[in-house]
């Protein structure tokens, strides 16, 4: 009987040798005359174990990882094609605690299925949400999204249902659905994983948005740094057209929805929604003034549903299982689950989807296993380059939008970057300003000029030139950027800077009270 062996096609797995491992397994099986079918699945998100090879056995799928090409003959010697023990064996993958402890709604299929197989997608619950939405009125569909409590997962956490309702209620001859797949935050890769490992769920979520609000054309604005995701999306969209999910007659409903992929061009600012729209229109990615909001006047001046990949990918299960099912996860005003990305200096990095309320302590130690370097974890940055640095004393704060806002931090897109005790926080603060200077669109002065002055001021603090006065200037500058910038880039760059300064003053040559020592 042919043994089914799974080797992920996710670009993270490929980046550490999955393609070569897949080929080595096929070659070795041929050499030994063992009938094997190598299936390129998505990644389970246990990225420290990649390439994670899974073997289908009567007792379920058994995992081995991380596998190198050199391990392959030894795995065959050990009988891994029958799920036999080996030092790399992690046992049945579904029961592996790191995975079993998660609440996977968005990522239910990732790693389980062949991402480009429509029949497997359907067999694992796909398309049921879209069918349910097609049976509803637009108003009821939008109400379901509102009831679910879903908030924008790109970082701003705006209630998705309210946004959709605005689009539904705005009369226009053409409306659009735009997906923000410009996942530029360091430490985030959940969008990429959806697009590579379960792209149909994004397509389905966008189609539901179109059906619910009356938009007939969708665009995915994908960053140019994600060529693997682009190939996966293009293939999935072609399949979706051929099975009638996209096109003039969505699943036989007579409703129309068409979808296109547009590639960004390496500008971080295009993750900001209005700048993204400018870019989609073929212009420089300059931030627009709001109002009007994109839901009223968005792409080409038309009402536009503009959401992040994870927001759209959360939609199908809300329609499949019901709004209440989804909102029963989470706490306070943060409902549902968040795909959290553990990254940087972490032993067991990857994708952890959990209901809101999990703490950094659980994530960093129970899931993450501590730092990769084996040194103490000193700080983490949550929410990308505009997120605050959080000290160990706050690792027990529950991860939810309001709890984080109350400590001057933000959940953002759910990326967590871990730093050990060798990190120099003055350098990280300087980097935050430098990054803002590189990526500023240049439209507003606080961001364009402030970021460059910020780098210079931090340099003077590091060098110890008139620290007291420079500190006052930095604080003033940060306040100006915070309140005077047009968008979150200039408006939030002060968060990493000021949090680094507040929690780690010694790295800036200051006393523990944050004051410059008397000269």
């Amino acid at each position, binding site marked *: 009987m042919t043994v089914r062996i799974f080797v992920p096609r996710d*670009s*993270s797995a*490929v*980046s*550490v040798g999955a393609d070569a491992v897949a080929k080595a397994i096929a070659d070795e099986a041929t050499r030994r005359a063992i009938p094997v079918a190598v299936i390129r699945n998505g990644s389970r998100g246990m*990225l*420290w174990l*990649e390439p994670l090879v899974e073997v289908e056995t009567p007792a379920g799928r058994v995992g081995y990882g991380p596998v190198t090409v050199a391990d392959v003959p030894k795995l065959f010697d050990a009988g891994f094609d029958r799920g036999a023990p080996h030092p790399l064996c992690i046992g049945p993958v579904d029961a592996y605690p790191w995975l079993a402890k998660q609440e996977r709604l968005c990522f239910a299929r990732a790693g389980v299925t062949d991402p480009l197989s429509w029949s497997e997608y359907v067999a694992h619950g796909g398309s049921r949400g879209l069918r349910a939405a097609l049976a509803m009125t637009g108003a009821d569909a939008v109400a379901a999204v509102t009831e679910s409590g879903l908030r924008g997962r790109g970082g701003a956490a705006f209630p998705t249902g309210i946004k959709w309702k605005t689009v539904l209620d705005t009369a226009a001859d053409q409306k659009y659905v735009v997906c923000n797949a410009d996942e*530029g*935050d*360091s*430490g*985030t*890769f959940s*969008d*990429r994983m959806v697009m590579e490992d379960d792209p149909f769920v994004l397509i389905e979520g966008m189609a539901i948005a179109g059906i619910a609000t009356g938009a007939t054309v969708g665009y995915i604005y994908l960053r*140019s*740094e*994600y*060529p*693997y995701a682009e190939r996966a999306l293009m293939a999935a969209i072609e399949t979706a057209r051929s099975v009638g999910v996209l096109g003039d007659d969505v699943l036989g409903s007579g409703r129309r929805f068409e979808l296109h992929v*547009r*590639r*960004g*061009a*390496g*500008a*971080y600012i295009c993750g900001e929604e209005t700048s993204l729209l400018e*870019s*989609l*229109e*073929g*212009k*420089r*990615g300059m931030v627009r003034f709001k109002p009007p909001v994109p839901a009223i006047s968005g792409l*080409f001046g038309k009402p536009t549903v503009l959401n992040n990949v994870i927001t759209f990918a959360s939609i199908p299960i809300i329609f499949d299982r019901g709004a209440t099912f989804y909102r029963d996860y989470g706490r306070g005003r943060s409902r549902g689950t968040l795909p959290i*990305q*553990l*990254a*940087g*200096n*972490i032993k067991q*990095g*990857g*994708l952890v989807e959990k209901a809101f309320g999990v703490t950094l302590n659980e994530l960093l130690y129970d899931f993450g296993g501590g730092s*990769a*370097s084996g040194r103490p974890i000193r700080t983490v*940055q949550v929410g990308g*380059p505009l997120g605050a640095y959080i000290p160990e004393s706050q690792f027990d704060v529950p991860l939810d939008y309001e709890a984080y806002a109350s400590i001057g931090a933000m959940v953002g897109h759910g*990326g967590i*970057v*871990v*730093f*050990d005790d060798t*990190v120099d926080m003055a350098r*990280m603060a300087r*980097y935050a300003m430098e*990054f803002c200077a590189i*990526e500023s*669109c240049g439209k507003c002065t606080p961001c364009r000029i402030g970021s460059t002055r910020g780098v210079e001021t931090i340099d003077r603090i590091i060098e110890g030139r008139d620290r007291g006065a420079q500190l006052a200037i930095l604080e003033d500058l940060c306040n100006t950027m915070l309140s005077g910038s047009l968008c979150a880039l200039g408006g939030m760059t002060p968060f990493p800077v000021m949090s680094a300064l507040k929690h780690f003053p010694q790295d800036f040559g200051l006393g523990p009270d944050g004051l410059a020592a008397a000269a």
Partner: protein
Amino acid sequence: MQETQLQRVQEAVARCRDLPGALLPMLHAIQDDLGYVPPEAVPTIAKALALSRAEVHGVISFYHHFRSAPPGRHVIQVCRAEACQSIGAERLVARLRERLGIDFHGTTADGAVSLEAVYCLGNCACAPAVMVDGALRGRVTEAVLDEIIDTAALVDEHVGVAGGAR
């Protein structure tokens, strides 16, 4: 710009000009084909889209991705964002500068390798990450980097021989 290049630019322009918001897809089509957007192509693009040359130039120069000069035969993009920094990206940057003798946005004198900074490749749990000619690499060490550079050189020698035979 050579005659054949101009022809390929015109083909890309014709293919993309009727798309809504056509300029970025057009620039991508040209750069995917030629490796860069030749400054001589700007008037053709501008005319097709009824834009001024300044507007087209403004878009090309706004986006980090677009190049106005041909890159080296190989492009190494190294991630400089926080997650990669937390686990040694700066050491990789130092190694690349030392081995290649160039800085970011530079190309080696023999035209073999261009070095680019990139801010996140989405491989943050397998950091540090680099992208070599569009292929993503993770858990990159200085030794792996040396291998990448040496392989690039080897491939070039091979291409050189093949080119000579032609």
